[in-house]
């Protein structure tokens, strides 16, 4: 039966000239179905948009194309030849002309344009195998001409505009395909996430030109405006399935949003379904307990010396910060805590104002911050669980600078029990724990200080579903004990499950807010609507 469909597709392919096709690809991670029989067809010479919210399976599909993720089943056609998708490898992706340029791009800022173009390809060399810089530069100039990039070959990449850097990365990926009939497929993964508006236009113009020249492009983005402006066909993923396929005039803001968010009533989403009950119980709780006092105020300084309220969080309230990648949501949390300098806005808490770039004072004023990247910014890996817990409260555990080990151990044991950390002992190193339990330790580290304001950045990233629910419960418990919580998450399902209301951030500014009961769909709608308005 599969053979039958394959033959049919091949016929269609010949008619439409399909550059790349994927058929019935599935991938399961533990309990999550990341891709569920996804099929995709990319017409030769088209710019094919690939869209979907967080967790839609978009990145899994890209990784599968790159040969980095092996799917459970499915077929793949490159250059008209069907293969079992499970046998796809990075080497094969490269050999069949798939070129990937990622948002966190792999260019080297301190090297020149010519050097960047040569890396990964090989340098022009002289008879004695030393690099022939003259030939190298000449070749780089030729590539730059061909891709119409108006920069000198010996400029250091860091001096170029972000759009030009991205174009050099693209040129590097494509430099070797000289003949039109040998064109492969260029996959651009969120190429504009870190580009300012006018730079985006420069890049899009260049991409249109390459496509007109016959280059097939897969354009992965969550920016609706760009996708409607540049693509000829779009595949939208939702919950691991293809939600819609659009071509030509069908591609509009509304059709894309409908595809990304689905019809809100029939949503199967776990997060949004939970949230209704959770909100009902929590609204009751916070009102009953009478936590109406303002715990955190962010105010922007205006030109006339007055201040303009940007965000206000009351004690016992959980407020979400929603925004797209590159909207400045993580940066805002770091600025509030003082880990990143700020001069755009002032922070006031109950015990006074919080100065910029002074984390110690921020802590004294009752702020707590759980950063996004646990491994890099929170874990003290080879230190024990007890030591990881007490580090924010050393003065509590010591007398005149001397640590009291029994007291420290007891406090750690108490926290482990209270926060449901599954740990062999308080003296085990932090890395003996699973990711979810490590995150509970980090949370406990801060909550033992009974902070007035808790800043959470992606609190359950890389954490399994069970631990995720437990962490949510711990955050709710902290809120009902009077802590004001500000939470950033790229998973809108999580925000819907956790927060009572949310603000939308774009370009480091609060641009909108959602006050009613949150659902993943409402958040998606608001965030993408904002994106269109900009």
């Amino acid at each position, binding site marked *: 039966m599969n053979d039958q469909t394959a033959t049919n597709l091949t016929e269609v392919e010949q008619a439409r000239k399909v550059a790349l096709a994927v058929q019935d690809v599935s991938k*399961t991670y533990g*309990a*999550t*179905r990341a891709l*569920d029989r996804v099929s995709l067809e990319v017409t030769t010479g088209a710019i094919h948009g690939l869209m979907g919210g967080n967790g839609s399976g978009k990145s899994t599909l890209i990784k599968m194309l790159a040969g980095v993720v092996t799917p459970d089943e499915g077929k793949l056609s490159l250059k008209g030849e069907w293969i079992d998708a499970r046998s796809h490898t990075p080497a094969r992706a490269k050999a069949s002309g798939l070129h990937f340029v990622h948002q966190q791009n792999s260019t080297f800022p301190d090297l020149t344009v010519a050097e960047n173009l040569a890396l990964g390809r090989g340098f022009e060399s002289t008879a004695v195998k030393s690099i022939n810089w003259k030939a190298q530069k000449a070749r780089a100039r030729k590539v730059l001409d061909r891709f119409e990039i108006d920069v000198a070959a010996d400029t250091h990449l860091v001096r170029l505009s972000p759009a030009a850097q991205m174009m050099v990365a693209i040129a590097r990926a494509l430099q070797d395909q000289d003949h039109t009939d040998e064109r492969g497929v260029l996959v651009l993964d969120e190429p504009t996430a870190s580009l300012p508006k006018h730079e985006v236009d420069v890049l899009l113009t260049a991409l249109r030109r390459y496509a007109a020249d016959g280059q097939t492009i897969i354009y992965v983005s969550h920016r609706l405006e760009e996708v409607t402006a540049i693509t000829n066909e779009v595949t939208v993923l939702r919950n691991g399935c293809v939600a819609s396929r659009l071509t030509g005039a069908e591609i509009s803001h509304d059709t894309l949003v409908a595809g990304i968010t689905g019809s809100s009533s029939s949503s199967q989403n*776990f997060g949004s379904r939970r949230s209704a009950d959770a909100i009902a119980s929590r609204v009751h709780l916070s009102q009953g307990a009478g936590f109406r006092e303002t715990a955190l105020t962010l105010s922007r300084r205006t030109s006339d010396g007055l201040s303009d309220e940007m965000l206000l969080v009351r004690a016992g309230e959980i407020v979400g910060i929603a925004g797209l990648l590159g909207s400045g949501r993580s940066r805002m949390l770091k600025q509030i*805590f003082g*880990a990143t300098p700020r001069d755009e806005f002032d922070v006031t808490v109950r015990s006074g104002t919080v100065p910029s770039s002074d*984390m*110690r004072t*921020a*802590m004294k004023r009752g702020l707590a*911050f759980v*950063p996004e990247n646990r491994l*890099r*910014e*929170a*874990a*003290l*890996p*080879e*230190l024990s669980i007890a*030591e990881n817990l*007490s*580090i*924010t409260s*050393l*003065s509590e555990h*010591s007398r005149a*600078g*001397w*640590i009291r*080990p029994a007291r420290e151990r007891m406090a750690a044991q108490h926290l482990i029990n209270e926060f*449901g950390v*599954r*740990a*062999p*002992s308080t003296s085990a*190193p932090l*890395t003996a724990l*699973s990711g*979810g*339990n490590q995150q509970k330790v980090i949370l406990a*580290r801060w909550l033992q200080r009974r902070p007035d304001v808790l800043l959470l950045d992606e609190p359950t990233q890389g954490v*399994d*579903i*069970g631990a995720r*629910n437990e962490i949510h419960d711990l955050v709710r418990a902290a809120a009902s004990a009077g802590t004001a919580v500000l939470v950033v998450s790229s998973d809108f399902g999580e925000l819907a499950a956790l927060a009572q209301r949310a603000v939308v951030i774009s370009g480091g500014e609060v641009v909108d807010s959602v006050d009613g009961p949150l659902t993943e769909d409402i958040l998606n709608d608001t965030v993408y609507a904002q994106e269109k308005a900009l």
Partner: protein
Amino acid sequence: MTHTQDTTNGPAGSPDPATLPAPVGSAEAEQKRKAARARTGKARFVDFLESYALLVILVVIALFFCFWSETSSTFPTLANMRILLASQAVIGVISLGTLLPLLCQEFDLSVGNIAGLSAIMVAASVSSNGSVLGAVAIVLAIGVVIGGANALIVTRLHVNGVITTLGMSTILGGIILQRTGGLAPASNIPQSLTNFGTGLVAGVPVIFITLLVIAAITYFVLNHTSLGRQIYAVGSNMDAAKLVGLRTDGLRAATFVVGALLCALGGLLYVSRAGGASPNVGATFLLPAFAAAFLSAASVRPGRFNVWGTIIAVYFLAVLNNGLSLAGVDPYVNDYVNGGALIAGVALATVLYRRRTT
């Protein structure tokens, strides 16, 4: 597919063998707890082996030299033991001075020449005026000035620590050469100082007892005070330490300054023991001190640089070198031993660190 839906919505989630038991009181949990206890029993033995392997090897090597015909008449003598304990006390103190910055992931390559400069300046000073108090002042001044300079360059100018201290070490070498002209200064060390360097209390060299006292103080500060905990936190993850409000720059600076003070003190101890100072002595301290500091991560508290591990490592290297010298091997063999030990120390530290953190 339907199965996955069910488990995500189930109230307790699926029982995952990878996570440790959650429910308390059930028979299943009891069983798992027993299994965990059995595991810790075995783990404890492995931990013990890992922790004290170097000490065991030290004892085995010492016993070997006691019974090996080449050394059985010279190694296990009271005189040799005293020489061994006393001569290594200087290296021991300098190793602790190396250990402190290393705890913050900083290399101080100037340790040898700080001790060397301290030695020649102390020797010159006490020879001219006989004041031990003056010698102590020199030690303090060298420690604060040179350690402080290293600290400022590393934390304020953000120059890589290896480069900073390599440059500093070279400059200090120049100062030593300038002050001595490459010759050992004529020395007239007062009796009070040499008595300290060569004296015995209850048959044990005073200078070795001094090392133990310094090591004990360092140990207590590092492991039983808030300051020491903060230093270990900086060494574990500087970004995380910053984000829990630690003064990471101040802590790193403190380890450089106190480390330099210990090295300068090492110079004073050297003069008291050797009764003089030579311009080349600094260079001979550097490698054994680093080897010992790195080997410390392979004993007592595996995966972490620590005080008693450093002391064990100093004497491990000393016994090995001493035994081989007594057996009459050529002096270059000692270089093989020290160099090999440094590499082995780093390799072991890396392996044990990985085992603990992954």
